[in-house]
């Protein structure tokens, strides 16, 4: 069972970025070398992840026990269909965002403004972040999952406060303290799990938790779920996200929005299906999903900054994934997995677009933006396509992902499930409303219609009310003169990200079949447990 002709690739997604981080740190005086190392490493990770997807699909879960300890003792890395798909999607996203960041770094240094992306620390930190994400996806035991979370969180602390400007420090403090609290909670959960079962290995836990008293198991479950829910930004624990994400540099926000919350969602899927299949907590999770969806999107509707709107839609759409998990049917789980894949790509694309909007318009406040469709038709097209994709307009992946979830919800058919179906549709429409508002304000209207641009002009006494953008540096919305063109690398990376979002539509059939298989694996639990544990320690 462990004898594979293809070498065991499982540790590579963790090891390669860590090695790359060390190299980029050593090459800190040579940005060019740093860039090539990062790109090569992340491209290799994508390749490995693609092979793992094929391997897990064709031959079942892959496992590696590290450190040559006797089997249930050491640390195990496990890739099953779910992990492999998550690795592949996150690898693609990380790579494209890196290209975007490199483009931004080059463009900024051309303009003699390197404070935005201090390249020397950006590359190592970014690679460590990637290693942490991979480690969390591959972790075969709870404690290694915790370590994976800590690796990615620590890099994210550095990235979110990069440059040390006042607003980033403010945002960073909230973020770090909240993350610390959730880590402490996670540690308590692990301690409780170990005290109750004597192991932290997921496969062993899957067997032993069934023997526990239901009350004890429930306490363990709630403890772990709360810790993950903070990381995934599920409603009562979601307030930190819109406060901390918008201030970070564009590529950092993009990769955070795409990946970090999804690691929490992944952990919830894993724990719910593998450890606590008998106690799906359907009611609790469904209410959490409903509140996350509705309150998140209402937050987005009430905001006037593009980054904040997107942060709130991010929170809101986490609710869809929790909805799928809460249904606790193979179809629901498959829908949730598909939604995660779709949402990682599309949310990242939207945040990258926001970075470009900021570059072009000088701000992301909708009160001060206008005329972007004229200024950059390409950017406008990218935003339009991505926005429609996120809100779930029919031919695109957002629609397919939502249909999958709604279908699963209707299948379950309880009143609460129906309520969630309705909530999901309402959220989808409100997403469309929030993003259409962005479209009409930032892209479609002329700059002169933007309320704050004229007001600022008046306030500054800079002239009359018909705005001459060139004479009005305060609004910094420049339409006709267009002094800053969008760097090709950044635009290319954003276009590629949007294209990946669209490509999910093209491969939707095979991908949905894959997620179905992944979900039935998760529901059966057997492939995972039998692969990880040798026969004699299976108790």
């Amino acid at each position, binding site marked *: 069972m462990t004898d594979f002709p293809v070498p065991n690739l499982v540790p590579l997604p963790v090891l390669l970025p860590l090695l790359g981080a060390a190299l980029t740190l050593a090459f800190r005086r040579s940005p060019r070398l740093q860039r090539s190392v990062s790109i090569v490493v992340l491209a290799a990770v994508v390749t490995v992840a693609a092979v793992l997807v094929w391997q897990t699909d064709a031959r079942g879960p892959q496992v590696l026990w590290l450190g040559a300890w006797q089997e249930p003792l050491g640390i195990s890395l496990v890739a099953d269909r779910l992990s492999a798909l998550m690795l592949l999607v996150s690898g693609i996203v990380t790579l494209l965002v890196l290209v975007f960041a490199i483009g931004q770094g080059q463009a900024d240094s051309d303009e003699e403004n390197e404070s935005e992306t201090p390249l020397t620390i950006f590359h190592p930190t970014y690679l460590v972040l990637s290693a942490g994400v991979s480690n969390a996806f591959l972790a075969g035991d709870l404690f290694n999952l*915790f370590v994976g979370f800590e690796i990615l969180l620590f890099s994210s602390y550095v990235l979110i406060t990069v440059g040390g*400007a006042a*607003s980033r420090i403010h945002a960073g403090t909230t973020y770090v303290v909240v993350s*610390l609290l959730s880590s402490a909670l996670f540690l308590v959960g692990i301690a409780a799990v170990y*005290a109750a079962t*004597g192991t932290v290995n997921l496969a062993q836990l899957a067997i032993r938790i069934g023997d526990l008293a239901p009350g004890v198991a429930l306490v363990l479950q709630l403890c772990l779920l709360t810790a993950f829910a903070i990381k995934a930004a599920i409603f009562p624990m979601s307030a930190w996200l819109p406060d901390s994400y918008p201030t970070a540099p564009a590529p950092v926000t993009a990769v955070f929005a795409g990946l970090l919350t999804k690691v929490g969602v992944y952990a919830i899927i894993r724990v719910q299906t593998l450890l606590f299949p008998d106690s799906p907590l359907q009611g609790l999770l469904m209410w959490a999903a409903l509140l996350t969806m509705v309150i998140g999107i209402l937050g987005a509707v009430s905001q006037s900054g593009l980054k904040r709107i997107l942060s709130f839609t991010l929170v809101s759409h986490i609710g869809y994934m929790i909805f799928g998990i809460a249904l606790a049917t193979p179809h629901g789980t498959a829908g949730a997995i598909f939604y995660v894949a779709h949402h990682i790509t599309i949310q990242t694309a939207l945040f990258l677009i926001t970075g470009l909007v900021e570059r072009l318009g000088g701000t*992301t406040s909708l009160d001060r933006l206008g005329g972007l469709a004229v200024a950059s038709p390409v950017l406008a097209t990218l935003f339009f396509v991505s926005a429609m994709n996120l809100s779930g307009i029919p031919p695109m992946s957002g629609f397919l992902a939502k249909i999958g979830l709604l279908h699963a919800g209707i299948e379950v058919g309880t009143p609460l499930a129906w309520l969630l179906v309705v909530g999901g549709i309402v959220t989808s429409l409100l997403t469309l409303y929030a993003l259409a508002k962005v479209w009409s304000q930032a892209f479609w209207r002329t700059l002169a219609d933007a*309320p704050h641009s004229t007001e600022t002009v008046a306030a500054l006494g800079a002239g009359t009310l018909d705005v001459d953008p060139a004479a009005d540096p305060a609004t910094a919305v420049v339409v006709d003169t267009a002094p800053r063109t969008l760097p090709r690398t950044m635009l290319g990376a954003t276009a590629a990200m949007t294209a990946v979002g669209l490509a999910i539509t093209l491969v939707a059939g095979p991908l949905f079949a894959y997620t179905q298989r992944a979900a039935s694996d998760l529901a059966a639990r057997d492939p995972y447990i039998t692969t990880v544990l040798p026969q004699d320690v299976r*108790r």
Partner: protein
Amino acid sequence: MTTVAPTLIESTLQPNLTLVLVTVFLVATGTALALDRSLVRVLLGMVLIGNGVAVLYLVISGRAGRAPFVGEDPAAISDPLPQAMVLTAIVISLATIGFLLALSYRLWQVSGTDDVPDDAEDARIQRLALEDQTSSTYDPSEASTTTSDELAEEGVVSGAGSSGTEPSATEPSGTEPSGTMTARAGGDPR
């Protein structure tokens, strides 16, 4: 699929009440501190919570025993696994606390206080709610209720993200936001 493991654990795990009480005390005091406005107190609270959780791992390692070396009688040694875990956790929390310390120093540098500030955007929306106004994007006349001070603050918030892309015009970089922040924090009765 017998219940061997749990019974085994039940027989070895006799929680030490003193350690449990120490954990409770540390976590409780830490939580109280973490609820404070001052970031340094939050940080101290986090240290206490982290230490409390570390003590919890001593509880779950069960009966104290000899050092767990290979070759010792397994019945006489203490459980090495929680120790390995808690060592990792302690190292991680050490690094995080160090980072948080640097962060609070920087916060003090840029704002002249280590109070965790209110979020400007939240404050704006709350004020609008109190005044029973619709949101700014809904009703352009809202702008008239925004004080110049808040406009400046909004500039800080929205400008912060763009600090690299728009160096000169939109937002004051570096020192000026701190000026606004200091003024605000100073005027804020605690």
